[in-house]
């Protein structure tokens, strides 16, 4: 339905800078997720798009029209709040009808539009109830119902699943994905949960300290994280980071010494690296296997059926985590050797920037 462009958005509260120069072009019908740790500015950015807060500088364009100074209702956006923000004294019907009442639509039109929204969200038999009588998932659906009756161009979601329990969260994730396809709408979704981001988004914006760390598809972020921050934020359990020293650079990659003395040549773009540089080798727990390589003392083993997550420490105290086969014959307290394929390694320089991997899955998911 609509494109959404953010141009050099900044936001400061007094002397505290919350957002610094956000540039972003969201395509029509795209499902974009803003993800990042708390305090990264993702909610503020959403509220600026909604018109609940004013950007300090910068422009917001919806369908190419500058709406930076427009009221929320004139921007063609709708927002679903974290707490759902349902009016406890109004029925489900009146909650969904609220935006239409504000717009003073005739009763017949209100009835038709609320009915259509209730159909989509399977709320027909709940219209007479008060929000207090609904379950968490139903309240969530009422909040979505209120947002769709106005046929907005862009939907904004502010951590809509954070108040639900784990099982329901998984279910609603699927419902929201399906809804986005059904409505064929542009959606912007804020969450701190990287799993939600990875499973729902067409493209993900990773925010950190008010800046965009990376903007790309889930698989791009997983296989080609641009920075150490993205690499450790995406994926569960977190990527391991092992300090290493550059001993050689060449066309076939970067040769490094790992702690414990193992020397490996990693297939990354080593053009900027120099002999003797301190780098960090990133390796995902799921890419570590038992074998000769680095050694750690196993502290805790979590058996999850198919896999077992092994947590341990290297001699110098560095924590490591490996996702092993469920039947791995290792025991808590013993020393375990771990190895990995050189193609699975990520390398980050001292500033946290990645060295481009040469061999890795294709960019398309």
């Amino acid at each position, binding site marked *: 339905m609509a494109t959404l462009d953010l141009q050099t958005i900044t936001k400061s509260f007094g002397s505290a800078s919350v957002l610094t120069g956000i540039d972003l072009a969201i395509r029509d019908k795209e499902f974009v997720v803003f993800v990042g740790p708390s305090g990264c500015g993702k909610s503020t950015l959403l509220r600026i798009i909604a018109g609940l807060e004013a950007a300090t500088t910068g422009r917001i364009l919806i369908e190419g029209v500058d709406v930076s100074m427009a009221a*929320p209702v004139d921007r063609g956006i*709708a927002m679903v*709040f974290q*707490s759902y923000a*349902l009016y406890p*004294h109004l029925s489900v019907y009146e909650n969904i009808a609220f935006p239409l009442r504000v717009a003073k639509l005739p009763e017949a039109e209100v009835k038709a539009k609320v009915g259509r929204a209730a159909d989509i969200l399977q709320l027909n038999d709940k219209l007479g109830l008060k929000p207090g009588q609904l379950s968490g998932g139903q309240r969530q659906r009422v909040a979505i119902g209120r947002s769709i009756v106005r046929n907005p161009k862009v939907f904004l979601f502010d951590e809509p699943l954070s108040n639900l329990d784990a099982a329901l969260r998984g279910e609603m994730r699927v419902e929201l994905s399906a809804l986005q396809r059904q409505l064929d709408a542009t959606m912007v979704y804020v969450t701190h949960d990287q799993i939600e981001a990875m499973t729902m988004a067409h493209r993900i914006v990773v925010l950190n300290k008010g800046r965009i760390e990376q903007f790309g598809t889930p698989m791009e972020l997983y296989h080609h994280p641009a920075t150490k921050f993205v690499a450790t934020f995406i994926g569960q359990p977190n990527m391991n980071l092992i300090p290493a020293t550059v001993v050689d650079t060449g066309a076939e990659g970067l040769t490094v010494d790992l702690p414990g003395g193992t020397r490996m040549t990693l297939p990354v773009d080593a053009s900027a690296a120099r002999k003797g540089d301190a780098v960090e080798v990133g390796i995902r727990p799921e890419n570590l296997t038992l074998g000769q390589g680095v050694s750690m003392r196993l502290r805790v083993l979590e058996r999850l059926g198919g896999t077992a997550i092994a947590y341990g420490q290297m001699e110098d105290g560095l924590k490591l985590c490996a996702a092993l086969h469920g039947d791995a014959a290792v025991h808590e307290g013993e020393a375990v050797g771990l190895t990995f394929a050189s193609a699975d390694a990520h390398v980050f320089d001292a500033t946290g920037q990645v060295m481009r991997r040469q061999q890795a899955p294709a960019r398309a998911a």
Partner: protein
Amino acid sequence: MIDRLSLLQKLGVYAATFVFLLFLLMPFIEMLRVSLRPMSHLMTADFTWWSEDFSLQAYRDMWVTVPLLGRYIFNSIFIAVSVTAITMVVVIPAAYAYARLEFPFKALSLGGFLAVNMFTGAVLLIPLYRVLRSLGMLNTYWAMIVPGVAFLIPTGIWLLRSYLEKIPRELEEAAFVDGASRLYTLRRVVIPLAVPGLIVVGTAVFIGAYAQQFLFAITFNNVREIQPLPAGLFEFIGYQDTTWNEMMAAALTGVLPVMLLFLFLQKYLVAGLTAGAVKE
């Protein structure tokens, strides 16, 4: 949390509660006792909880001694209701502004309101007299309503503000996103949710208005017909002796209709007093 008290401790707690309430209620009990006894027995110093000479005679005689008594009771309630109504009309938007908006001198003026209350009693009577005289309001109902409103607005704002702050901000933001104006939101979202708080604050203002009218009445009004009850009670003080028992009976009778109203509102008052943040 469990408090395991021995039987003795429990008895102690109940006894302490009882003594405390008795201390607070002492003057009322004294009023009731006096109103039930004939004048001639009043000056006997012995204090008994129940006496055989109790009768309702004073409740009959008082209407004769002070013929305008009914009028005084009406005036009292009329003045208190008017003060409450006018105060609430001003207080609701003002408290909302203090709860939600940012504006210059917000904290300072909120503190200043407290200071205004300090003068309620006495110090301000003389300048108020001068202000009311120049406005031509002396010896009218306005003389007792306007000062009441002026002094109760700060208290009302102060009390209502904390109720409005408990209404989740997201409810208003959601209305704002849907195109509702501040006033529409206040009318359709905030006020309906604040009803328990409004009842509590309205009651507190009413009580304040009732308590204050005495001072304003004796200072700014000397027209008998519009005098409120507390001032009218002085008519029981005669040239030769004072019919204490009738005076107490009249005071209790005047408060009775209000007490019945409170009893009726009790359920809402308790709800308002114990209300936390609005849950969805």
